[in-house]
């Protein structure tokens, strides 16, 4: 008996069945080159279950009329060569990854019929993560899981489904729960998830059971055609060579030893998946014009003026996390763009992070900016004491330091820089929100540096803040900054 040659080969045991004409499924190649040029038998070992399952799947593909639509994901293991048998689209996958590969194919072609065919090492061992998550997403794919409780291709090692006391080359005295754990019930695991629509365990032990397997395989494929969702059929299958038995003995052993551990039967058969799938074709294609619009490719630039910088601005804005330090930097960089200048913004990061403060580095220049890192700023905006302590000494002579004096209980010690002590948080609270303290500082910076204009700041702020009801309060902050500077310059 060579599985893979004659469909449902077990009928051969019944002499009356000899009159049935066996015809190879159209979805199988006429000859099996893996075995030999022109060979009509498979490369699988005598008595192996793969050939039987290949036939059952191929017949189902024929009967459902889906041969052209099938993309068959073959695993690593004995069935790695499934593409030598199935005359369908084929892809060979890394060990255990077929469900991830299949998920991606599913999400590329709505009408493809995606099959993942996997053994127990592939699916229940190395690929446990991929199968569980594909099932959990309810991918509309069909998984055929061949469980023969042993690694075949690599020479009879223990599988996750090897039963207790079963001898393999890596469990020479039998599998012991204390060392190797218990055999894993994949159908039960998959059945514990919400998304799958169909889970059934079948057996190849006897002809009637093969007929049940045939039905389950068809159902699992039909579910996909009907776009119902994830279906898995676990097939208990003999491996006579690695079990060290004859073909007949292996079927008996399967029935007497595997089936009690892995009870056959349907675990789940839902009429409908637990969620509605988005039909992309109905949802409609997004036009290129719409994509350009979404990405803002055609957005007009906010261009207010062209400023001449006295010198390149290397600005460090520092404070506690949550003081809006990073967003203030972004606002400044956006203003620079509006002025037609080059700019970079970099958050506190790596070696730049010190003293428990968050900081942003902003460069503004007429030229392309080389290093975006501001190690020695010519402008420091210090929103709290640790920031002033950390960065005061790094400011270049002739630079300027703007301090939020509401938060910093000391004066700038340097005498070779211009210092502005602005009670920004107190001023902001008076206006109505501590959040705008940074805008007050930024206003004073704009006025003393000339790097950005107030007009730009007024135009960019409304585009930068999400809550539009805060625009007015930000404009008041700008006025407050102007007033403070006028008063304190006197």
């Amino acid at each position, binding site marked *: 008996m060579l599985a893979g040659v004659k469909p449902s080969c077990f009928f051969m045991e019944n002499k009356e069945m000899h009159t049935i004409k066996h015809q190879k499924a159209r979805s199988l190649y006429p000859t099996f080159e893996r075995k030999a040029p022109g060979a009509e038998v498979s490369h699988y070992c005598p008595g192996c279950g793969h050939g039987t399952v290949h036939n059952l799947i191929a017949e189902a593909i024929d009967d459902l009329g889906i041969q052209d639509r099938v993309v068959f994901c073959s695993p690593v293991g004995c069935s790695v060569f499934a593409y030598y048998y199935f005359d369908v689209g084929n892809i060979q996958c890394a060990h255990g990854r077929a469900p991830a590969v299949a998920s991606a194919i599913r999400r*590329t072609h709505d009408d493809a019929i995606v099959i993942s065919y996997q053994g127990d090492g592939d699916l229940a061992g190395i690929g446990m993560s991929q199968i569980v998550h594909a099932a959990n997403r309810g991918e509309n794919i069909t998984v055929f899981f061949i469980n023969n409780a042993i690694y075949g291709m690599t020479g009879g090692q223990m599988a996750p489904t090897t039963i207790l006391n079963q001898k393999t080359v890596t469990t020479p005295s039998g599998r012991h729960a204390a060392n190797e754990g218990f055999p894993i019930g994949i159908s039960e695991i998959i059945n514990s998830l919400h998304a799958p629509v169909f889970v059934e365990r079948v057996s190849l032990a006897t002809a009637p059971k093969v007929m049940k397997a045939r039905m389950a395989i068809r159902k699992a494929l039909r579910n996909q055609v009907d776009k119902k969702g994830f279906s898995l059929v676990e097939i208990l299958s003999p491996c006579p060579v690695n079990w060290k038995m004859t073909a007949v003995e292996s079927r008996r052993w399967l029935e007497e030893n595997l089936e009690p551990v892995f009870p056959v039967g349907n675990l789940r058969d839902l009429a409908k998946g637990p969620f509605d799938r988005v039909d992309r074709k109905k949802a409609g294609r997004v036009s290129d014009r719409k994509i350009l619009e979404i*990405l803002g490719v055609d957005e007009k630039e906010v261009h207010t003026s062209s400023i001449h910088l006295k010198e390149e601005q290397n600005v460090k804005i520092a404070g506690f996390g949550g003081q809006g330090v990073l967003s203030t930097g972004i606002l400044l960089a956006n203003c620079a763009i509006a002025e037609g200048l080059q700019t970079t913004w970099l958050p506190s990061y790596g070696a730049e992070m010190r003293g428990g403060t968050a900081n942003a580095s902003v460069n503004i220049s007429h030229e392309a900016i080389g290093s975006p890192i501001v190690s020695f700023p010519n402008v420091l905006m210090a929103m709290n004491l640790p920031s002033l302590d950390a960065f005061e000494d790094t400011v270049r002579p002739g630079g300027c330091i703007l301090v939020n004096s509401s938060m910093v209980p000391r004066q700038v010690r340097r005498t070779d820089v211009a210092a502005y002590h602005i009670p920004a948080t107190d001023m902001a609270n008076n206006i109505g929100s501590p959040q705008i303290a940074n805008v007050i500082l930024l206003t004073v910076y704009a006025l003393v540096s000339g790097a950005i204009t107030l007009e730009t700041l007024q135009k960019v702020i409304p585009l930068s803040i999400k809550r539009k009801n805060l625009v007015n309060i930000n404009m008041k902050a700008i006025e407050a900054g102007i007033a403070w500077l006028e008063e304190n310059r006197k």
Partner: protein
Amino acid sequence: MGKHLMKGNEAVIYGALLGGATHYFGYPITPASEIAHAAANLFPRCGKHFLQAECEVSSISMLYGAAAAGARVITGSSGPGLSLMAEGLSYLSGSELPCVVVDVQRAGPGLGYIWPEQADYNFIVHGAGHGSHSGVVLAPNSAQEMCDFTYKAFELAERYRCTVFVLSDAYIGQIMEPVDLPRQIQSNPHKDWALYGDAESRHNLLSSIYLKMEELEGHNQHLQDKYRRMAEEIVDFEEFETADADYLFVAYGITSRICHSAQQLLRNKGIKVGMLRPKTLFPFPDVRLRELAGQLKKIIVAELSNGQMVRDVRLAVEGRVPVDLYNWMGGRIPSTEEIVHRLEAETGGL
């Protein structure tokens, strides 16, 4: 044309969508997560697919599946994620499937930390995963190039049927700069080798198995020929003031930005320093480096690793000129001044 202030990581996704990307699969990791955030936001709105995978092993396998199905696919990650992807990257090369993989390098080894390093160079440039394989490696040094390089990566990946890596670092991922977006959306062409789940593509097989030794050898030779062709066709670099240079900085990514500033300062001090910035690390600009070697007193390779690119530079110049390494590890970034002082001290001022 509007310039958009955006992070390098976000710019990747703008480049991807305008470059015709159809699928993003990924797993979050700092400092690359903004790539996934932007993809999650923009891919579905643009009618494309976004899926957060359960791990990087799966996300790269999803790239494998979607690429096989003819999609334009991309993922973004950082060192620990790339390590997990090694398996899939080897399979992608073996099956010659095109895809785009962005590595925002962080400090390693192991968990290391989220600060920038350039220590994935050996792993990415010299073949991530088992077997004799590689892919195109592009090295952006700005948010603009994160967009532009990703934009052109898909066409390159399809031209050579290979992985195109965008090898950046935590700074280039996190930096915000004005970006000019490409005006044209690239289309995803039909591939006669891909699996479309239809009659026309039914006979296609995507696999990296070769059962006959001579066939596998032939396949390997074919891959190597392809890599040689890349060297002739797409090697790309940028030079600054090399014509009369005595010293040459070679650096990529964030380090090239710092070196460029240092190079300009040193020129102002009268020291004849030039710079070569590889834009492609694979293929590597070895021919140009060899040409320049004869006129130089010294090459200085600056990188955030134990010295990985420096080996390629030394191989390129074949001993014609001394090659020094300025390197930093663990996330520390040199200031421009540090590099200036170091070279100044070595040259004795002039």
